[in-house]
Every structure is written in C-alpha cells, then in structure tokens.
C-alpha cells in the first residue's frame, strides 16, 4: 500500500486508456504521454496496461508501506527517496517505510511513476484511468490528495532493481521540435493563407492547457465565407456535427488540440489531427512553450507510429 502525503499540483492514476466507449461520448483518458508511461511500466516489469501515477508540473509525496520497485519516466523532476536522490528512467528499490518526495518538473510537464504490480484501483468501464471531468475511474475519479491510500498489485520484484532505459530511448522535450499533423477533416474550411499559417507560424501553449485540450495562441485563423448549411451553427468555424478524433485541432478563432479527456464530437471545424506518437510529446509541452505544426501524410503518420512502437519494443527487449 502507498500513502499519499501530498498530492502535488495534479496527480492522477492513469493507464493505457478506456476504450470502446467513444461512441457514447466517453473519451479514452489514460496517460497523456503513453510513451513514458509504457517505459516506466517496462522498467518495473509491468504491462503497458498497468496503471501508473501521472504527476503534472509538481510531483507528489508518498510513503510506501511495503517493499517494492518503482521507476520514474517522462518530465525531468528531482525527487528524494529515503533522503537519496532518485534517478529518472531507471528502476529503484523501495523499502517499507520509505518516503518519496518529488519536486517541480524542470523539463517537460508530466512525470510517470510506475510501481511493480501497478496501481490497483478498481477498473471502471475496463480502465483504471481517471477522468476528472465527470469524476470516474482512478482514485475516486479525482486528483490525489493527502491521506489517500493506493493499493498495489501483486508482483515478483526479484531482479527488477537497477534496470535502465537505453539512452537512445530517452526523449528530448525541446519545443523547437515540430509536432506532426495530418490535415483534415475540415481544413477545406480554412482560407489558403490560414491553412499555410497553421503549419508555418509558431503557436504558444496557454496556461489553461490541460488533459482536456491544449489551447494555443498565435495568428488569427480565418475561414472561407460560405452560406452555412442546415445543421451547422451561424459561426464560420461551425460545421454540421462530426466526431472529433483524439488529437484533432479544433478551431474557433484559435486552435485547441483535443487531448485524452476531451469531448468526442461536436460542431467546430477540426482542421488537422496530431499524429499519435507526437501527442506524447505535445503532452510534455509546458505552458508558454512553442508548438510548430508540420503537415504529414497518413502514411508518414503510420510510419511515425511504427517507429515509436519499434523503439518501445527495443526498450522492452533490452530489459528482458
């Protein structure tokens, strides 16, 4: 069992997502950076579907009531375990009674804490992920707070300590790296100039960007004038309702990238979709940092996904 001494700014239980309910309006939730979540799980011998703690901007303080093995991956965050500095991207032995104290993220936004056996909260609709907007899943559907206690799944921790991530598999969170997008479904609604600017001008992450959506600011986006069809609202950014792909860039006047807790459909024009592998990097982009979109084809998006999967396979095999 783990006791929460301080929940940090926003710490939630997350796994690989809640699937199969999108059509009834239930978003997937799950770790914003699935890559780091998965590596943290591999380091402690878990499956990617096991639940980790997602700590955002400021980490939590915990007391472990049992011997176990933990790993931290994702945003660089200084921490102390039983008074000793804790390495990132490496599995670390924990003894019953040890206290972990995490500081602020210095590079990236979200750090994942995996525990051997996984965080064992009751699954809701097939997932342990927290969807705070409606208060389901995870720990009571909310962020962690002082006094909460988390159960841990059974695990054989033999030989799990001191396992490290290959250096080529530790990502960089440099905000000059482009975020790849596939244009569509509604980019035809943009003026030619705005479609061009979407993928050439810098965008800046606003302070209210969260797990629901990443609000961006930059140049004003403009739409081709038209007589709005029946069923679309009066605003030029309105279309007849459609499903919003996860990662889609919804535009009213400024873009919002819909993230893992977002609404699943509606009538705003979605002008592009961030490819799955780069959603992990976008989830690590900090408030006020820049975002550059780069337009890619669907084939290039699939290649990016396969490359990321190959890298994760390499990490898993290196630990076997």
């Amino acid at each position: 069992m783990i006791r929460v001494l301080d929940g940090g700014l926003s710490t939630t239980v997350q796994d690989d997502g809640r699937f199969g309910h999108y059509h009834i309006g239930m978003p997937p939730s799950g770790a914003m950076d699935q890559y780091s979540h998965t590596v943290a799980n591999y380091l402690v011998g878990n499956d990617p579907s096991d639940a980790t703690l997602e700590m955002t901007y400021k980490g939590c303080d915990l007391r472990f009531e049992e011997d176990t093995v933990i790993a931290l991956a994702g945003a660089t965050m200084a921490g102390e375990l039983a008074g000793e500095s804790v390495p990132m991207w490496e599995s670390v032995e924990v003894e019953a009674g040890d206290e972990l104290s995490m500081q602020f993220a210095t590079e990236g936004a979200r750090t994942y804490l995996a525990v051997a056996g996984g965080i064992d909260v009751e699954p809701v609709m097939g997932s342990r992920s927290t969807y705070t907007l409606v208060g389901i899943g995870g720990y009571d559907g909310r962020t962690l707070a002082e006094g909460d206690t988390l159960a841990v799944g059974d695990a054989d921790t033999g030989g799990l300590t001191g396992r490290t991530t290959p250096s080529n598999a530790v990502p960089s969170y440099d905000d000059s790296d482009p975020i790849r997008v596939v244009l569509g479904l509604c980019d035809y609604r943009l003026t030619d100039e705005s479609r061009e600017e979407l993928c050439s001008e810098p965008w800046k992450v606003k302070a209210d960007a969260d797990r629901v959506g990443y609000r961006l600011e930059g140049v004003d986006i403009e739409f081709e004038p038209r007589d709005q069809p029946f069923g679309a609202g009066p605003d030029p950014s309105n279309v007849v309702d459609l499903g919003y792909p996860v990662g889609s860039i919804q535009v009213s006047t400024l873009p919002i990238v819909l993230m893992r807790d977002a609404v699943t459909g509606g009538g705003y024009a979605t002008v592009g979709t961030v490819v799955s592998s780069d959603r992990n990097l976008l989830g690590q982009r900090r408030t006020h940092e820049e975002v550059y979109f780069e337009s890619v084809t669907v084939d290039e998006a699939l290649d990016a996904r396969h490359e990321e999967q190959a890298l994760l396979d390499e990490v898993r095999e290196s630990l076997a």
Partner: protein
Amino acid sequence: MTTFTIEAPMPGVFYRSPDPEDPPFVEVGDSVSAGDTVALVGVMKNFYDVTSEKDGVVSEIIAENEAEIEAGAGLITLELDD
C-alpha cells in the same frame, strides 16, 4: 541588508490575490514569515500557493498581477530580518 527573491516554481500565470475581488496577499512594506502564502501561480486551472521560504519585509513586487511567468522567474523580493 540582505535581500531574497521568491521565484516561480513552475510556469503559469502570476496572481497577487486569492480572488480578483480580494486584496493582495502582500504589499511592499509588509512583513512575511517563512511558510506564508505570498501569491498564486495558476496553471491548467489549478492554483499553486507560492510561499516564502524566509522571514522578511517585502521590498519589491517584481511580476505584474496576471502576468505570464516562466519557472524560475523572480516574483517578490524580501529584505531579510537580521
């Protein structure tokens, strides 16, 4: 006189008061004790209490109310008690 600058622990928006209708946590000339809340940083619709690590008197409020700040930005300067 020794001075000490309270820095932003994370990026976000700097707020001098707990609510727009409320007075600021501190003004220049106010005494603060270690652990006192002196400002808020808002990020992702969460608000983090910025506390003073030291006892002292507020000599300068560096950041503007509701300004966007980066992690490590100087927020408030104290003249420390001797």
